[in-house]
């Protein structure tokens, strides 16, 4: 316990390491052993050890163990690996496009690829996803076409958001992937409403949503936990604790560094899971889905991970943390861990990895080439600026019609 001994001038926390320091993750909650998997109708209080501990399936020896092992087939694991590799290669390509001015801005999922991919794979296709900008990978699971994703990021003629939002603000209703919004946190409380609507309609649909460690300080986090628990919403509420909110360390978001436990006093079973462990993520999410689907209400999950890259293409993390810091993260890298596990069980090889990587690379490259045919940011063509006026309302009212006409006049002049 810090503090003590009289009045100090305003205490302000700090990050555990800054540029020049050595990275230090001693506080990482090494799983003390395998944690139990409770019944889905358990009380929140029965999950305290899960919230204070860390659910892992893949050990440092790349073997699985414990009650939480989802016992997935190698095919499913390879599928997951492929999605994660695709996301990483896709992200790298997009960053290159950003650096060459073909798109305006980008945000990678680097180091966090497992989160949305494992979790979405653990759900049914009819379940609703309400993501932030750090879960685009879910779209691969739901079979979204990469060309359309790239077109969105460029904001060209084929962007289904019609150039209205910044890159990475995907929407993909067909895949029940709900429109990403910039104000952080808002989706978390909205997702409870989505879930309650499914419930009201008597449908066996679950909603999953994510919020960052930083954004969990918004009021929406509290609204979500409160409304979800009071009305027993079939919702999975994830706090993705990747340690940083831009330059602000999670020490400014939680005094004790544990987000999972916050769910328990709301009466919501809460679990902390290793966010770089594909199998653990899958397993915990299946459990939560089962629970929600059977009418037992919400689950609160802290996904413990590390933002390995910059916050966004506008950010330079070397100004506020050691540049190689992510290499020291005790959770390792989600892609390596899954591929090492597959090798361990004899279902994967360096050669296969290499081949898959190359195949994805050329797919991404092909998608990229296809997408820029519809325009890139540097060269156009852009979506018509008519899209400024459409879908503001279901039908444009007179004042929008008037202004639209005026805009057209200027555009043509």
């Amino acid at each position: 316990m810090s503090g003590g001994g009289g009045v100090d001038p305003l205490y302000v926390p700090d990050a555990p390491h800054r540029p020049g320091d050595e990275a230090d993750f001693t506080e990482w909650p090494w799983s003390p052993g395998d944690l139990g998997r409770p019944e889905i109708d358990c009380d929140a209080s029965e999950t305290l050890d899960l919230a204070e501990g860390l659910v892992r399936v893949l050990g440092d020896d790349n073997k699985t163990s414990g009650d939480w092992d989802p016992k997935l087939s190698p095919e499913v694991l390879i599928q997951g690996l492929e999605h994660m590799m695709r996301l990483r290669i896709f992200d790298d390509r997009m960053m290159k496009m950003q650096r060459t001015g073909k798109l305006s801005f980008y945000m990678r999922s680097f180091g966090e690829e497992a989160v949305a991919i494992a979790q979405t794979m653990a759900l049914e296709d009819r379940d609703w996803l309400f993501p932030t900008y750090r879960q685009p990978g879910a779209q691969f699971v739901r079979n979204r076409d990469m060309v359309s994703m790239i077109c969105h990021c460029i904001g060209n003629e084929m962007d289904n958001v019609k150039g209205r939002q910044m890159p990475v603000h995907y929407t993909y209703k067909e895949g029940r992937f709900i429109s990403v919004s910039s104000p952080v946190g808002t989706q978390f409380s909205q997702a409870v409403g989505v879930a309650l609507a499914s419930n009201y309609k008597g449908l066996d649909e679950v909603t999953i949503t994510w919020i960052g460690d930083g954004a969990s300080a918004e009021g929406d986090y509290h609204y979500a936990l409160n409304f979800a628990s009071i009305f027993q919403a079939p919702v999975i509420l994830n706090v993705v604790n990747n340690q940083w909110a831009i330059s602000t360390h999670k020490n400014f978001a939680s005094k004790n560094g544990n987000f999972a436990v916050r769910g328990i006093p709301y009466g919501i079973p809460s679990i902390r899971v290793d966010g770089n462990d594909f199998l653990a993520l899958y397993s915990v999410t299946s459990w939560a889905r089962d629970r929600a689907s059977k009418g037992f209400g919400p689950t609160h999950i802290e996904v413990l991970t590390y933002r390995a890259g910059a916050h966004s293409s506008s950010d330079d993390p070397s100004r506020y943390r050691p540049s190689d810091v992510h290499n020291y993260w005790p959770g390792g890298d989600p892609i390596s861990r899954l591929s090492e596990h597959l090798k361990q069980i004899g279902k994967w090889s360096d050669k296969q990895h290499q081949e898959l990587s190359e195949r994805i690379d050329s797919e991404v490259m092909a998608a990229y080439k296809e997408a820029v045919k519809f325009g890139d940011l540097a060269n156009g063509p852009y979506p018509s600026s008519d899209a400024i006026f459409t879908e503001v309302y279901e039908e444009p009212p007179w004042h929008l019609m008037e202004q639209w006409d005026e805009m057209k006049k200027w555009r043509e002049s």
Partner: protein
Amino acid sequence: MPNMNMVEAVNSAIDTMLSKDEEVIMFGEDVGYFGGVFRTSDGLQERHGKHRVFDSPLSEGGIAATAFGMGINGLRPVVEIQFADYIFPAYDQIVNEMAKVRHRSGGEFWCPVTIRTPAGGGIRGGHHHSQSPESQFTHTPGLKVVYCSTPYNAKGLLISAIEDNDPVIFFEPKRCYRGPFYGDPHNVPTWSDHPEAEVPESHYKIPLGEARLAMEGDRCTVISWGAMVHVCEQAIKSSGVSCDLIDLQTLVPWDVEAVVKSVAKTGRCVIVHEAPKTSGFGAEMAASIQERCFWNLESPIERVTGWDTPFPHTTEWDYMPGPDRVIAAIVRTQED
């Protein structure tokens, strides 16, 4: 046709929609078991079930967010904010989220939510039970803004709002819940025998975007909404000046045709609202009217509004615009 006060008319509108459409659902603070602090949902939980009309936690932000989620997933939530003064914790969810989701998602998701809220002064509510924050919603594209004034238009507009596929902020002048307000706090009439209190039991709509011509005349156009409509009626009668009285009803989108036609005819205009003057919706009306009717105007457009101060408690009658101030403004428009 039954006579209803505005509380009953609002209740009837929600009741009608709950009966007609299973997608309609209602919640908010104290609206369930108790039926609302103003009784606007009295009996609705009993009639339609606890899962369709229910109490919510005391959190306007949470109410708006939950309604948003339900709205994009196929329901048509009607939520109550207990007093318009308490809508601000939900402001982000309304202006950044509800207003923009259709547009931002390329039309994939939309949010047919109606947010009802009692607004305005005249019940000794002091600064946090009297505000009329309509203009703070009119600046945000994607929202529709409605302000009813009588039992008849309350029901017809509310049904339109609920059936509308865009988010609608629906203001109810709480001072008029039980009777029209003519500006005299000591003379408190009820709605009985008032023609605008003849309200059909059944479903009917007043289209959003259409104004109501409450009085007809040719020397001045008086534009108002909410409780002030009745103050204006009183003022026009006492002024002896022949006036059009336009009850705007919908602020966004407002009825440009009705307004322009009237001002073109009268050449004079007075706009009356309870909210503070600076950046009240009267500003938009005046700015637009001078743009559209400049050559018709015989005198400056007048605004009669609340002062640019918080709303007081004890001395609220020195704050609320009354008929005298409206009369004086009408007379001033005739001078030049």
